């Protein structure tokens, strides 16, 4: 299946009952799959009039207790940011998929990793973060998608799945047998009509500054818990590595190809692949920095994740960056050449 379609199927299998989306390349296959599959699965599909409408429909469905999702790409994600901020403030679960493309502006429809900042630094207004999951293969979607719905419900907060156009449109074999539908959470906070209970209000306007501050600290405590408990990453040939590549998503797949070639020449290069971009695997990098001096950040952008690597390493080690924005997808050979050059220069 294509990544887009697999993502949609995984969502339905994870208990997503309401999908609202607006067409934008390169994720249209996801929206179209939902249009085809949702009614038969007993769910609701609406093609909304805009990405703004979609995120607000998600908010409405979520506040009423449903597992709800929307998907888009860069420009549409920008439109959704206000809605994401409201979801966070209202403490509502939601899953938002961004299949990244070249930017900024209209950009292009090629795969890119251009929205890392937007995804990991809150993205909308106000003091907040969202969990950001970065799958690297179509099969990994069968793990990342149920995880997204689970974390969203568990923490009552929106979760972003950050893919890219290549992941969305590549066709790979996928096996859904291992997908475990996340268990339902208590949603007594949901708005269902005040029958037999006091009326409930969900709102984020808090005029009193001390109360607003209190609410913010409450959200922050939640984010600290997530940072403590929900970091996920993978390593590849890292144990004896003298240089660690840091890459995610499709970037990590390209890097894997490059590292294989480098290892054939006995260059001791390994990789750490963050799966949660937020919370970023800070501790894992700090641990690696005890024995590794060179960190090579590879991303399909001008360099965004590199800032988190800098933050994680706190001045230790040396950071190399190879970034290509604009929807350019480097080949493993190209990356192999660059890493090889840096590796030799570092010696």
């Amino acid at each position, binding site marked *: 299946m294509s990544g887009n379609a697999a993502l949609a199927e995984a969502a339905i299998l994870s208990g997503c*009952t*309401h999908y*609202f989306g607006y067409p934008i390349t390169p994720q249209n296959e996801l929206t179209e799959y939902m249009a085809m599959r949702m009614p038969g699965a007993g769910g*609701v599909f*609406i093609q*909304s*009039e*805009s990405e*703004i*409408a*979609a995120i*607000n*429909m*998600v*908010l*409405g*469905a*979520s*506040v*009423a*207790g*449903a597992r*709800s999702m929307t998907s888009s790409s860069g420009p549409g994600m920008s439109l959704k940011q*206000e*809605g994401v901020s*409201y979801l966070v403030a*209202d403490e509502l679960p939601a899953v938002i998929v961004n299949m990244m493309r070249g930017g900024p502006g209209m950009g292009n429809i090629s795969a890119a990793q251009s929205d890392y900042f937007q995804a990991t630094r809150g993205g909308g207004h106000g003091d907040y973060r969202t969990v950001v999951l970065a799958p690297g293969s179509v099969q990994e979607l069968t793990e990342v998608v149920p995880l997204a719905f689970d974390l969203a419900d568990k923490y009552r907060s929106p979760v972003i799945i950050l893919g890219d156009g290549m992941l969305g449109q590549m066709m790979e074999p996928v096996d859904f047998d291992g997908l475990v539908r996340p268990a339902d959470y208590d949603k007594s906070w949901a*708005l*269902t*009509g*005040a*029958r*037999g209970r006091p*009326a*409930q*209000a*969900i*709102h*984020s*306007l808090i005029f009193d500054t001390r109360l607003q501050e209190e609410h913010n600290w409450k959200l922050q405590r939640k984010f600290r818990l997530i940072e403590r408990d929900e970091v996920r990453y993978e390593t590849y040939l890292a144990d004896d590595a003298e240089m660690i590549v840091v890459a995610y998503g499709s970037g990590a797949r390209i890097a894997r190809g490059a590292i294989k070639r480098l290892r054939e020449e006995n260059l001791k290069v390994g990789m750490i692949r963050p799966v949660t971009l937020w919370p970023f695997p800070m501790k894992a990098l700090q641990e690696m920095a005890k024995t590794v001096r060179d960190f090579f950040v590879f991303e399909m952008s001008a360099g965004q994740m590199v800032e988190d690597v800098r933050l994680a390493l706190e001045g230790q080690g040396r950071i190399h960056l190879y970034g290509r924005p604009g929807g350019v997808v480097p080949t493993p050979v190209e990356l192999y050449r660059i890493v090889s050059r840096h590796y030799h220069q570092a010696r």
Partner: protein
Amino acid sequence: MKTVYARPKLLKEAHFHYCPGCGHGVVNRLLMEVIEEMDLAGDAICVAPAGCGMLLYNYFEIDVVEAAHGRGAAVATGVKRVRPRNLVFSYQGDGDLAAIGAAEGLHAANRGENITVIFVNNGVYGMTGGQMAPTTLLDQVTTTTPTGRDAALAGHPVRICEVFSMLDGASYLERVAVNRPAAVVKAKKAIAKAFRRQLDGAGFSLVEILSPCPVNWKMGPLEACRWIDEVMVKQFPLGVFKEVPC
């Protein structure tokens, strides 16, 4: 002595924050009266706006969710699609529905979403201090049309009921007012009718309510009520603009 009118129980004890003579107070009251009389307190879910009406959850003894500015119809769509048997209505002002929320309102109507939009039209942006609204009349002075609204610069007032009546998905559209006792009685009837139709699955309904905003119109409350009759209804005639038999 027999009580022939008392505060609806569904109105909380909190004092309204609205200006003296503001129509929001009347509309808030009518909504809770209707919901109480139709015994819908356990089913109603209200979507509150940005604007003077944003504090509804302080007044309504029903479930309320706040929407971002203009997004009420989209949030209500999401709620209703999950809870089709609940009474779901959005409460929106001029900016919320006719400006920033125009697309969401129009498309909710176009899709025939079985929700009710309560549209409070007071010809101005109240909460933010009296700026022009899409519904501001030509030559009307507001803080962003200090010399009066000029069509060449700022366009014409938007007639929401008329515009929405062109949409096949819209089921019931009525414009009413709350500037005279008889008008208030009609407004209440329209709200009740919209809610009854929603429960019967009739589809999208909208009740547009001409409402006085004395402070931003720079008039006394009675003058504001009269202005609705003498000036405003010429642009926004009262009546039913669409009623699909159900």
